[in-house]
Each structure stands twice: as C-alpha cells, then as structure tokens.
C-alpha cells in the first residue's frame, strides 16, 4: 500500500500535479510511512528522471522549474519527519549561498533540497550573500563543501571573490567549493579554481558526493 502511494507521489511529481503531489506526500507522512523512502523513491529518484528528460530535451524550462517547486513543497512536508526519525546522514556539512547582488535562489534551493535528500547537512545562507558572511559561516560551521550560485551574468564574478576571500582567510584548503547557475560553465569553474561544477541539481549531488569521497551516486 505504501509502495503504491510512493509510486503515486512519483507519478504526481512527474505529471507536475502540485496539489496531488502535496496531498499524497502529506498522507504518506501522516500515515507513518518511512520518510527516507518517501524522499528517495517518491521525490529524489523522480527528480533524477526529470533531470534525465531535461538533458534529453524531452522537458523544457517551465516543467523543470515546476517539478523543482513541487519537490520543494513536498520536501517541506517530508524533511521534519526525516529529522525526527534521525534521518540518514553522511556526516558532511554543506554551506550554500546565492552570491552578493543576486536574488535568484530557485536553483540553489533545488540543489540544497537534493543535497539534504542525499544525506548532507545543508546550511542555506540565502541570497545576496556577501563573501564575508560566507567566510564567517565556513569558519563557524567547518563544512566539507561550499556551494555558490549565480544566475546573473553580472554576479558570476562574485564567485571568484568568494574564493579569494576564503583564500585570504586561510580557509580555502579546508573546504571544497562548488559553483553553479545558468551562466556558469565548467570552464569558468576551472578558471577560478573551484573544485566542482554541476549544470543541474542531480549532477550537483553527484559532484558533491564525489568531492567528499562517496561514490554511491557517482556512476548512477
């Protein structure tokens, strides 16, 4: 029965039926279903499929963004149950931020939600975050990974500024830095000396797992 409902949740997410997905997620959690199973099989696996269809040109931007938003809404229901149940944890912290001057956090939120699904402890600093605040968070939280997001062409250089600030604070070697966002490329990541880059949320999770030495999803 629970398996059917989880399949129903996956189906609703894939069909971009927001109300149904949220209702099924709520029913599953209220009914005592294993939140990890709901998150992984109902939501995360489905988002991987959404990513695959996007890469294959079978889905377009609105569908992907809609799926991400439905994922977020469902995750808000599942996450408290996951935490209450002790949840699965990798023992790695991630600090995420949309860089200074940029208020676009859709992609960053999506990556953060999927990182949590994978077992990372995610600390989201929000949007329009100055480099100094990111440095402070790294000093205080000692994360394994910092994820920096930029949507605007004009704010992408701020990712380099964050790397420089981490270097200046003597923290650069203690943390892996991943960058992403629509105008961000692998070439840019290489150019500024970032440790990782991903073009979408599922790939970001794979890259993060690889950076912390967990190969569970690296070949998935």
């Amino acid at each position: 029965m629970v398996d059917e409902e989880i399949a129903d949740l996956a189906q609703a997410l894939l069909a971009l039926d927001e109300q149904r997905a949220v209702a099924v997620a709520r029913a599953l959690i209220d009914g005592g279903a294993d939140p990890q199973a709901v998150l992984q099989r109902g939501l995360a696996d489905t988002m991987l499929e959404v990513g695959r269809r996007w890469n294959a040109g079978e889905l377009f931007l609105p569908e992907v963004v809609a799926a991400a938003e439905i994922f977020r809404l469902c995750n808000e229901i599942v996450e408290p149950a996951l935490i209450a149940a002790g949840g699965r944890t990798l023992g790695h912290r991630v600090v995420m931020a949309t860089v200074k001057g940029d208020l676009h956090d859709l992609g960053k939120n999506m990556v953060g939600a999927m990182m949590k699904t994978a077992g990372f402890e995610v600390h989201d600093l929000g949007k329009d975050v100055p480099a100094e605040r990111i440095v402070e968070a790294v000093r205080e939280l000692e994360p394994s990974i910092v994820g920096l997001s930029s949507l605007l062409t004009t704010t992408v250089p701020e990712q380099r500024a964050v790397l420089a600030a981490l270097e200046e604070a003597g923290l650069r070697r203690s943390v892996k830095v991943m960058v992403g966002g629509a105008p961000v490329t692998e070439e840019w990541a290489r150019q500024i000396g970032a440790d990782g880059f991903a073009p979408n949320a599922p790939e970001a999770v794979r890259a993060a797992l690889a950076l912390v030495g967990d190969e569970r999803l690296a070949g998935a």
Partner: protein
Amino acid sequence: MDGEKRRPLAILACGALAREVREIAWARGWDVDLHTAPALHHLSPKRIAPDVDRRLRELEQRYERVVVVYGDCGTGGALDAVLEAHGVERTPGPHCYEMLGGRAALDALRERPGTFFLTDWLVRNWDRAVVEGLGVGRFPFLRGPYFDHVTHVRYLRHERDPALTERARAIAEFLGCPLEVVDAGLGELEGRLTDLVERPAPAP
C-alpha cells in the same frame, strides 16, 4: 553558392533587439541584411552559442562580413568563444538591459538587486516569454519562486507608445511593484553597433 556574389554585410541579432537594430541600420543607411535568432533562447541560455554558431556557418557563405548583436546573455563566455572561432565581433556588453540602459542599469542592479527590467520587446512579448515561456500561466504556483525577489520594475522605454507603457504598468502591477519608466531610447546600442559596422576594414 559557388559563383554567387556575396553580399557585403549581415547583422545577426537577438530577436529581442531586432526592431532597434533595424531602426539604427535604416537611419544610418547601411547596406545590410538583418538576420535574427530567437529571443526566447534566453529561457535556456545554453542554446544561444550553438544556435549562433550554426547561423554563422550559414551566413559566412553568403556575406563578406557578419556582425553579431548580442550580450553575453548568460552564456558564461560560450558565445564569445564561438564568435572568436568565427573571427566575428559582437556589440560589447553583458545583456540588452545594459546596452539600452547603460551604466545606470548596472548600478540599479547593484544598488537594488530586486530590479526587474522591461524593454519594449519584453513588454510586447510578456505573454509569450513569461506567461507561456516561464510557465507562469500553466503553473501559477511558480509566480513566487520566479518573482518574489522583485522589488522594482524599471521600463527601459524606446518607443513612447502609450499602449506599451500601459502594458508595462500592468506587468508591474502583476509583479506587485512600482513602475519606473526610463526613456532609454537606443541607449548605448546605437553607438556600439555603429562602431562595429562603420569601423574601417583591416588592411588586407
């Protein structure tokens, strides 16, 4: 194509700037053909560079010279890499808001990152680009994730058309923000494009 005489100049422009480019070309009397690439590529900027590459391959067969009217437009330098490979130049600038709004547009973004820019093209094509293109019509729950961060709407107006201004006002209302109208005209675009087109050809 062999044996056909090549035309002197093509401008390959983003569709979002086509009207402005046509106006500049007409006013300056250039002997030029205007070709456009879909403005809606901006919804997935990774499409821009490959599409421009494909179009340049075709245009280079038919024209002595091609000039491109695009910003970096979120391609993260991929467009410039394509242009460099073709030996083609584009109008400088990160995006059309800066080309039309100039330094003030960048300052506005820095001082108020919640500034949302409208151009004549976006006002005219709001339904196609945003309501349909971003899926806000089909998925009303996306309005928040897309636009909650918007605090101001700045309309970089070119044509003083009351109907367009009224439409811009309606868009600002939809976004729940005050509308600021700036008569940008052709902004920096005219000078930058003229520099490119009228620059003397390099000595052979």
